[in-house]
């Protein structure tokens, strides 16, 4: 005899393939249809933007691209948003990548952003219009890419002594002393701040061994699931700002008036969250109605 299932039972035990199907339809539809959603910014991201925006020309920022392709969707847009903003302001960047699969992505991001900065563009933020004149981004002048070395905690400590200690040459094999922007740049003392874009526990090392020991301003770009874990460091002042997941990247794009892949992705993420919430509500309605029916039936 087949057991009769009412609608609430079905809501409770919906085949997960329906969830997958509904989610993929919503993801594809919101990605294909081009519309903009308003992004509200948060103080955690504003503090990063304001600090970086206040840097004068030729200052140096160290950006650590400490993530693998796993976290590409969330963290790559952050890299694009932050790096493009800094290069527009002619701030120089030292890149490192202490994650094994990071260098190839960092290299790819550098190539892409360099290309996009060749054209003139007008940005409008903080109530001011900024005219950017397209320019060539030059290795060794606008940036230095140190590449990857294993044992990140040691590398972070070593860079506090001298960048040349662990990286006598850059990623492309040029000795650091031959790069114009590295003249007189010894260690973190010559760096305005460190921005760690990370999808793992390398962030802990940047906080403990980097900021804790060398006391530089540290800003974090993390995946969505990591954010809550690092709030204590924001409260204690060890971290100056946190960008969390795609939302953090979209907020940075909004602040820098440079809509890109994060704001595009936020459409998908927002509606995907709606779908998840809808299914949670359905599941709970099914749960409560089934329980009520059971109690009514005296079971």
């Amino acid at each position: 005899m087949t057991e009769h299932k009412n609608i609430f039972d079905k809501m409770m035990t919906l085949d997960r393939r329906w969830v997958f199907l509904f989610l993929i339809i919503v993801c594809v539809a919101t990605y294909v249809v081009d519309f903009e959603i308003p992004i509200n910014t948060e103080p955690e991201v504003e503090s990063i933007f304001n600090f970086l925006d206040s840097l004068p020309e030729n200052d140096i920022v160290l950006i650590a691209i400490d993530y693998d392709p796993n976290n590409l969707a969330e963290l790559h847009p952050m890299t694009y948003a932050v790096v493009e903003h800094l290069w527009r302001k002619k701030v120089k960047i030292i890149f490192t990548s202490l994650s094994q699969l990071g260098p190839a992505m960092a290299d790819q991001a550098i190539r892409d952003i360099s290309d996009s900065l060749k054209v003139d563009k007008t940005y409008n933020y903080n109530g001011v219009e900024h005219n950017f004149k397209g320019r060539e981004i030059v290795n060794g002048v606008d940036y230095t890419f140190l590449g990857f070395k294993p044992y990140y905690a040691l590398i972070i400590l070593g860079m506090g002594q001298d960048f040349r200690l662990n990286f006598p040459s850059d990623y492309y094999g040029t000795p650091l002393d031959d790069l114009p922007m590295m003249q007189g740049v010894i260690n973190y003392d010559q760096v305005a701040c460190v921005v760690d874009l990370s999808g793992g526990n390398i962030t802990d090392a940047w906080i403990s061994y980097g900021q804790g020991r060398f006391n530089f301003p540290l800003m974090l770009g993390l995946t969505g699931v990591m954010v809550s874990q690092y709030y204590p460091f924001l409260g204690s002042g060890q971290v100056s700002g946190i960008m969390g997941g795609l939302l953090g990247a979209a907020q940075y794009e909004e602040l820098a008036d440079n809509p890109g892949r994060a704001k595009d992705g936020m459409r998908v993420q927002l509606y995907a969250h709606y779908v998840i919430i809808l299914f949670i509500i359905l599941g709970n309605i099914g749960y409560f109605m089934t329980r009520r029916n059971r109690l009514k039936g005296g079971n």
Partner: protein
Amino acid sequence: MKRQLPFLLVFIFGAFMTIQYYIPHESSEFVYTFLLDWTMIIGIFALALGIWSLYQVSVEKIKHKKENWVYSYVTLFGLFIMVVLGFTFKVGDSWGLYSVFVIALMAFLYCLINASIAKSKGLWFGLSGVALVVLLGIAYFDDSWGVAFMTSEGLRNTMFTNFADFVMTPILATMFALLAFFIASAAYRAFRARNVLASLLLVSAIIVMLRFNPYMPFGLPELIAELSNWLMNVPNLAAQRAIVIGIGLGIVATSLKVILGIERGYMGKG
């Protein structure tokens, strides 16, 4: 002595690294830098050991035809071929005999792996020799591609970059993207208001998910954003801080036990 010496070394260097943190003197910094160098050197040996171990485990798996043994070939091919291909780059317009070189390289590895597990070792060694001659011949005579060890020209145009951009990155990104579907399914099944604690978790999760929702009326987005910020900055902060402090104290206690020779697990047996 065999056991005492490692304990002594751990005590001396552990104690030094703790104390030097508080001594901002040039000589202390010098020893500290020197020790960091040593740590890197020792670490490299660990890396070599890891590669050897991976090779051994994979060959054993092939030898005894354990479950999914075929994938061990993929592991070994990936490991060694990437090392070689990672440094090759195109010189002219075409890749010339590069594809033959790749096939010869795979054949060489296949024969070499079989030579270490098969009974007729001579045959496999002979075949691997032939493959080696072919691949070295192509590498020597074919001018349409070159080999670059960490040079600017090579790294900008290597097979390594191609593999990273067009194979590794899409594969890993896709694998991780699939997680979204499992999270959606898991959320649907797990987030049920069964009791007070589960209800709290459910409501908190929905508030945090909705914190950037711009479409709700009557100032609700602001209210939800404020609620979400409160959740992150008060209950979450308190719990995370307790965890961080607990972990910190645990690390200090464990480090002290290692330095003082109470914890000896790193020595292996005994």
